[in-house]
């Protein structure tokens, strides 16, 4: 029986044995609220069980950690950790890859729009 939840609850700091995380105090329920909404959106009950949410949080954090470690391994050959490393990791997973490229392009669009807006504001200020 997984005692990971219990283990984490009693150990407020250092959630794992990896040295790079030594400084991280792993608090419980960091993503709890977000996860509840998310799980409902994906098909769970409107009020998911707290133990389920805690377990999903553990799994997600572990997933992100593994993902980042792998990305770092890839990036170490080049130097800095870049977003492209994550994209490389999920290249086999079509839905995720598309979603990420969509998010990135949206971000770019927003950046451009914001810049255009700022220019307009400047013009307004100068004309006034």
């Amino acid at each position, binding site marked *: 029986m*997984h005692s990971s939840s219990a283990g984490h609850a009693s150990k407020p700091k250092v959630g794992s*044995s990896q040295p790079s995380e030594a400084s991280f105090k792993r608090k419980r329920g960091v993503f709890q609220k*977000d*996860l509840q909404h998310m799980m409902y959106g994906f098909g769970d009950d409107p*009020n998911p069980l707290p133990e389920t949410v805690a377990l999903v949080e553990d799994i997600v954090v572990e997933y*992100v950690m593994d993902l*980042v470690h792998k990305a770092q391994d890839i990036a170490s050959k080049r130097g800095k950790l870049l*977003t492209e490393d994550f994209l490389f990791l999920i290249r086999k997973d079509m839905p995720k890859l598309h979603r990420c490229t969509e998010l990135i392009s949206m971000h770019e669009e*927003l950046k451009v729009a914001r810049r*255009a807006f700022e220019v307009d504001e400047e013009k307004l200020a100068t004309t006034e």
Partner: protein
Amino acid sequence: MKRSKDPFEAAYGERESTPESPIPPEEAGTPAPNAEEENISQPPSVPSTSRAAPRKTKEEEEEEEEENMDVELSKISSADPDKMAKMQAILSQFTEEQMSRYESFRRSGFQKANMKKLLASITGSPKISVPMTFVVSGIAKMFVGELVETARIVMTERKESGPIRPCHIREAYRRLKLEGKVPKRSVPRLFR
């Protein structure tokens, strides 16, 4: 809000930018009912008019709230009017429960700040680029989706109903591992 009358346009606009916009995460804090009231009280108006509005107000939106909003909607409409029409057709047929679920699905996301903290602690470097935050948040959200959906499949196989229990999640996780969707640790986790 001047943004749009159509419930999902609001949902569209608010959500989509999962990790990058600070607004949805804050709103996710407020219980779904509030958002629902605001959306459902406004009758689903004719798609064409409300869709035209977002495109024009895109710049105005930027004034009020830095991020996104209807950018997403206008992006979808400008990119593929066909898809837009299909979505509208489907969405108009949603029951209230489906609607609220869809809204939760679109609006939910990991808090940018929390994700940044987590990433910073894992990578060891305090500076995390913004794109990285929302890319990882997006990936994580989809992973949660896979978990929950697989857990539901497990439940139907076992002919159980009700809220998802941890045993379902564990079984779902095991299956995802077999499918190779979970990155494998090269070093086994010794102390949890």
